């Protein structure tokens, strides 16, 4: 895929979003819409993106968008799909676009319902690993040892990040994939593949956040890339909940460069770091076993 072929004037994300400098979630939307095109309706709950889009009467997106209640993304998307189908408009992609709080936490029940029914929606979670729009509060997507305003230095988050991909796989959805803003080609290929499949498709998209992760805005891509290289955020796909495919087999890099690049991890003790590394290694081994060594690199 030639990235240079995408010109600004054809972008469905127009200049003038309300995000912070270096916002990973803005890139996430741009890359996604590059593939989905105009025949797309976006459903977004409360979250960074309901601010990024702009203040009425302005919008930086030139596809139809509905901003919905926090926990209703998947259910509203299911209703939109049903409404469109009832009117014979079954070709339109309904993109449910929620952050980690809106997906892992408050929106999870509705997502589970839609996945169980296999509603024909594309659900993308842009994961910045905390409630960033409300000012950096921990979610169940926040990694262990991480600082947020509700897991302060005196009480850094003890729990691991919730395994959302495993949970979606257990629902048996036809397609689930992890992706990162640091690898747009991989992301776009996954969105494209998702478009060719009917039913509930889920993409877990890592979108680094300079404001909440406490790194310089110009490091957004680099930090997200380090998450892949250190095997903290592996890129893989799951088909029908059964066929696991690994998309990248990075040479093992220590987690330190990733953690040290971000202020949110600077209060971790050496013990916490060691435990973090152990978790990463264990999760990686489990993943590789599920993928039976199959590498489906792009």
């Amino acid at each position, binding site marked *: 895929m030639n990235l240079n072929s995408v010109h600004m004037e054809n972008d469905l994300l127009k200049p003038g979003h309300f995000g912070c400098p270096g916002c990973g979630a803005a890139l996430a939307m741009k890359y996604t819409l590059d593939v989905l095109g*105009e*025949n*797309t*309706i976006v*459903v977004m709950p409360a979250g960074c993106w*309901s*601010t990024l*889009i*702009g*203040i*009425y*009467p*302005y*919008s930086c*997106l*030139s*596809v*139809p*968008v*509905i*901003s*919905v*209640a926090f*926990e*209703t993304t*998947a*259910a*509203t*998307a*299911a*209703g*939109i*799909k*049903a*409404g*469109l*189908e*009832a*009117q014979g*408009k079954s070709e*339109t992609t309904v993109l449910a676009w929620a952050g980690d709080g809106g997906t892992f936490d408050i929106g999870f*029940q*509705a997502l*589970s*319902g839609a996945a*169980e*029914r296999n*509603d024909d929606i594309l659900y993308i979670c842009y994961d910045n690993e905390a409630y960033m729009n409300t000012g950096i509060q921990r979610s169940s997507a926040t990694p262990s040892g991480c600082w947020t305003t509700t897991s302060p230095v005196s009480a850094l988050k003890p729990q691991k990040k919730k395994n959302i991909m495993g949970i979606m796989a257990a629902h048996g959805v036809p397609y689930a994939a992890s992706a990162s803003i640091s690898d747009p080609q991989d992301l776009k290929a996954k969105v494209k593949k998702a478009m060719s499949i009917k039913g509930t498709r889920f993409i877990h998209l890592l979108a680094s956040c300079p404001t909440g992760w406490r790194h310089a805005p110009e490091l957004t891509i680099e930090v997200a890339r380090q998450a892949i290289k250190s095997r903290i955020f592996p890129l893989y796909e799951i088909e029908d909940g059964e066929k696991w495919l690994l998309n990248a087999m990075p040479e093992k890099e220590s987690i330190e460069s990733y953690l040290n690049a971000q202020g949110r991890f600077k209060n971790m003790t050496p013990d916490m770091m060691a435990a973090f590394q152990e978790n990463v290694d264990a999760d990686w081994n489990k993943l590789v076993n599920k993928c039976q060594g199959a590498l489906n690199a792009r």
Partner: protein
Amino acid sequence: MKKVMMGTEAAALAAKLARVQVVSAYPITPQTVTVEELAEIIGRGDLEAKYINVESEHSAMASCIGAAATGARAFTATSSQGLALMHEVLHYASGARMPIVMVNANRALTPPWNLYCDHTDSLSQRDTGWIQYYCADVQDVMDSVIIGYRVAESVLLPVMINLDAFYLTHTSELLEIPDQKEVDDFLPPYHPSEKLDVDDPRTFGNVCGSDLYSSFKFNRHKTMLNVVDRWNEAAAEFELKFGRRHEVIEKKHTEDADILIIGIGTASGAISLSVDQLRHEGIAAGSLRLSMIRPFPVRFLQEAVGGKSKIIVVDRDVSFGAEGIIAQEVKAALFGASSDVEVHGFVSGIGGNDITADSIVQLVRQTISGSGMAVQAGNSLWTEVLP
């Protein structure tokens, strides 16, 4: 065509006659028969519609909002706890101007668990911006769902059709089934000018500043106030076509009455019977059924109350620490308009206790004599309270 059916079945059949395009369903007693019936109707192909088995009432309303946003006619039914769970999205549906029609079976809220009739569930949603209609009988359920869509789509506001748990949901009555062609004529397909449409991309529900926010709310409030007249206009057209009247209030012997008894839902039947009994005893009683609670038919109430000395309000609900909710509404509507009238509020029939003509007569006697079985608590008198 005439048929015997329960209120829950009538609600489902009315949704079919209204040719709803999306049904979102979650079971809760005593509404469940409605969504079961619709599953059957859609399953066997008698209605071309999408049926979504959602995982909660919150998602039922959310998916109705999504469907309505695309320009589809959406329907759901709920009750009690389910309605309470929907609270957040009820505000959303009216704020987004989605003309959804929802049937609510009025059932008591827990704890303790109780499946029987009580109006606190829907009356505690009265500030969510939904048009609220309370049915008196099964025919009223059938007809008001159809009128409901007509009004909802003309003003772009959602409508809640309320029917009393078991008294209507599970009571079979003989009713007239409207002819499909005539319903189609009364209720044309829904084609909103603004919707989620890839050929005309628009953004709905963005963040908005304080200045515009208050204007949006003001417009909604003004539209809502006009719904009293819009409903009566639609009801008049419905009456022309189908010969049945379903207005925002229903009166009996009000003109020469000295005492006016006000109620909502099926209690209005008992109240109406009590008026006959009281008149027989020489008491100049009249009755008024408020079928619409939101918007509140202030002008109609004021006109009906003029010249009366006493009003009795029967509330199957309560606002704890205040009084019956309808009593408060009536007092607020009459404030400054009828200063001489006494308003006596009774909290009666909650949690499924029967309201009968006899029980209403007792309330009237207590109002006249100043003593009786009902126990005073603040501004309300409670019946069926253990000593």
